[in-house]
């Protein structure tokens, strides 16, 4: 099998990509437009969250606190928007800053105080989950849900020219600012990681910390920056959950989306563009489960399990992919080395 992959690797890749495009087009044509729109909307937190996970992983830190940072963003967005008289934009900015702040604290605790990364992430998630509900009750007297008539939602933006394209228009236009921001973020993260010197430093730190240090890269600084940026993106993702659709905060409203975002980034091998499409798929599966809930008699609990099952399948696929890639690399190395050995003889 590895030989086969080795010789025809390129062709297989092209074939898979074409298959993917065909499936995507088929889905676009056959599925109702509302479903596609809602899946793009639902994919937004996954897109931003996976970018957050990806930047941290590229800098060599497995950021498992994304769930907590997203929840904090969702909470801060609503609270600040409420205090600012209902302006959603202020809330979104505040959520981004709050996520960044938590990311910075996380980075300092991990890098300076040397707290175990996983335990730290569990503590942060636990703290945010409890503190948000605590403040909801002590400051606003709200139980479980906080909504206020003064809170407005982010306005829908219709892109001027794209809007009028017959089929793609309604698909690409008519979302709020965070959706567009998430698309821009994907491009920006790609440019940052692969086209700038700083991005090269980030990747170097993630590949091999000691080697990066010996060539004079300030590893701690790079990781602090990556974690702060990761926190900002997670905060923005959270603000979409609370301000993007309904403008309210619900207890534990992230409901595991932060963890799914981490899986998305793993599945995409920490590549921004691949993560974008994976996130779209997860958005589609979530939208489909909601769609089926309203149109069929299937039990809601089982439908809600669909994205989770997709995630689990994705994890297994990721593992198989890694395994295959490893085998391929080993084969390549062996054949190359064998040739050199033969040459020497």
């Amino acid at each position, binding site marked *: 099998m590895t030989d086969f992959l080795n010789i025809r690797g390129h062709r297989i890749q092209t074939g898979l990509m074409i298959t993917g495009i065909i499936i995507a087009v088929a889905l676009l044509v056959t599925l109702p437009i509302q479903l596609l729109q809602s899946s793009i909307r639902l994919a937004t937190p996954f897109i931003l969250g996976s970018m957050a996970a990806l930047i941290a992983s590229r800098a060599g830190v497995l950021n*498992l606190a994304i769930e907590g940072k997203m929840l904090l963003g969702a909470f801060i967005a609503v609270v600040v928007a409420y205090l600012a008289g209902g302006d959603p934009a202020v809330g979104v900015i505040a959520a981004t800053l709050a996520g960044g702040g938590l990311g910075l604290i996380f980075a300092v*605790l991990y890098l300076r*105080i*040397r*707290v*175990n990364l*996983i*335990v*730290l992430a*569990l*503590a*942060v998630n*636990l*703290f945010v*989950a*409890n*503190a948000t*509900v*605590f*403040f909801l*009750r*002590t*400051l606003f007297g709200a139980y479980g849900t906080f909504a206020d008539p003064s809170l407005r939602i982010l306005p829908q933006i219709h892109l001027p020219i794209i809007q009028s394209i017959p089929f793609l228009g309604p698909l690409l236009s008519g979302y709020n600012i965070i959706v567009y921001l998430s698309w821009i973020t994907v491009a920006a993260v790609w440019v940052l990681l692969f086209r700038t010197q700083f991005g090269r430093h980030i990747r170097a730190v993630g590949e091999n910390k000691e080697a990066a240090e010996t060539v004079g890269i300030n590893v701690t600084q790079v990781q602090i920056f990556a974690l702060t940026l990761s926190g900002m993106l997670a905060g923005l993702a959270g603000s979409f959950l609370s301000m993007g659709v309904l403008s309210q905060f619900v207890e534990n409203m992230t409901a*595991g989306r932060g*963890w799914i975002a*981490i*899986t998305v980034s*793993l599945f995409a091998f920490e590549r921004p563009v691949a993560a974008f499409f994976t996130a779209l798929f997860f958005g589609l599966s979530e939208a489909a489960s909601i769609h089926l809930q309203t149109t069929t008699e299937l*039990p809601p*609990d*089982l439908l*809600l*399990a669909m994205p*989770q*099952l997709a*995630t*689990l399948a994705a*994890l*297994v696929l*990721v*593992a*198989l992919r*890694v*395994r295959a890639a490893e085998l391929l690399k080993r084969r390549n190395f062996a054949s190359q080395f064998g040739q050199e050995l033969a040459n020497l003889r």
Partner: protein
Amino acid sequence: MSKGWRQTLENASIPILAIIAGLVVSTIFVLIARVDPIQTYANLFCEGFGPTGCSSFGNLLVMQVEDEESGAVQTVFSPLYGAKGHKLALVLERATPLILTALSAAVAFQAGMFSIGMDGQFVLGAVAAVFLGFWIPDQIYLAAGVADPETAPQALSTIMHLIMPVICLGAAMIVGAFYSGIAGYLKVKLNVNELISTIILNALAVQLVGYLINFPLRADMNSLARTRAIDDTAWLVPFNRGIFQDIEWFSGARVGVGLIIAIAAAIGVWFFLWRSTAGYEQRMTRGSRLFARFGGIPSERAALRAMLISGALSGLAGGIQILGVERRIVDGFALSGIGFDGVLVAILAKESVFGIILVAAFFAGLDNGSVNLQFGNIPRQLGGIIIAFIILFNAMENFFRSNITRIRTRLRPPAPTVEAQPGATT
């Protein structure tokens, strides 16, 4: 003091300091809620650990009680004063599943598997126990031609009382072990990150149980979906209805045989981890999987075995919670978070078996106490905030340790040099 004792004391000092620091830092939140922190903590600990009628820290130890008939006031030693029930009995009730899920986490951690799938294994174990708890007796009564369980022959009901709990708990353990085994297999064979896979498996289990309770296992049209209650023969009778029914200390708490099973499991886990070959193998595997393999240890098998044992313990916790406490599953049971609390207990106790029992009791009291704080205008989430800070401070151990050593070396008087003049200082 022997070296072993000093080591134990040093190990215990960090969690204790972390607990104190966590409580101190959390006062900020109490102050934000505009409540007197000292009184709040007094209430928290009284509701968590005190006797009925406790209202201050002092009452945790001694309390003045007025005799209802004679009106005479007498001083009593609080932990043993059980009139109208003691909160410590509730602590034991709540700590029982926590001890088991924490042991489950400890076994997995000690094999280097960071599994936090205890929640999923717990609820699935509970479902298995509740289903068999009413289904098997139904079949037996049907086969024996007994129309009403009340009129069952004495011999039959005695036998059923003996075997039903064993069957239910056994099934719960198998289900838990199977569910944990999925994550273990994926990790060992495919190197799938067990932390993420167990989180997803937890979510799946919660949804599956939600479905089962709302549809196939739903007993009646009660507004809150619930299953049938288990048969009386499968019930693990709590102390306050059974052997200790005259002791008021236990009244109101559904602590029972489950606690004894949990303690026995703790001893078993200690023996397994520190006194058996299999335990040695899995601890080696934790240190370094490759090193263990080169040393001739089947590290994959050891890791998988640890995951199976871990799952069985969590499933057992779920089974005991059903057979001893809940007796049926009500919608929302799956979100109780007992499994996740077990992970936190194991982390704070540094996976030490004895520590787990103590920390589980502490968490149980904190939990019970913070739930009752809600009447005093403090959300019960204060308990979660305190626990998060405790976990965080506990994890700062290395930082504190290195600083303490630094200060110690700095404070130590420098070694006497040649220039020093003896006698000049005296």
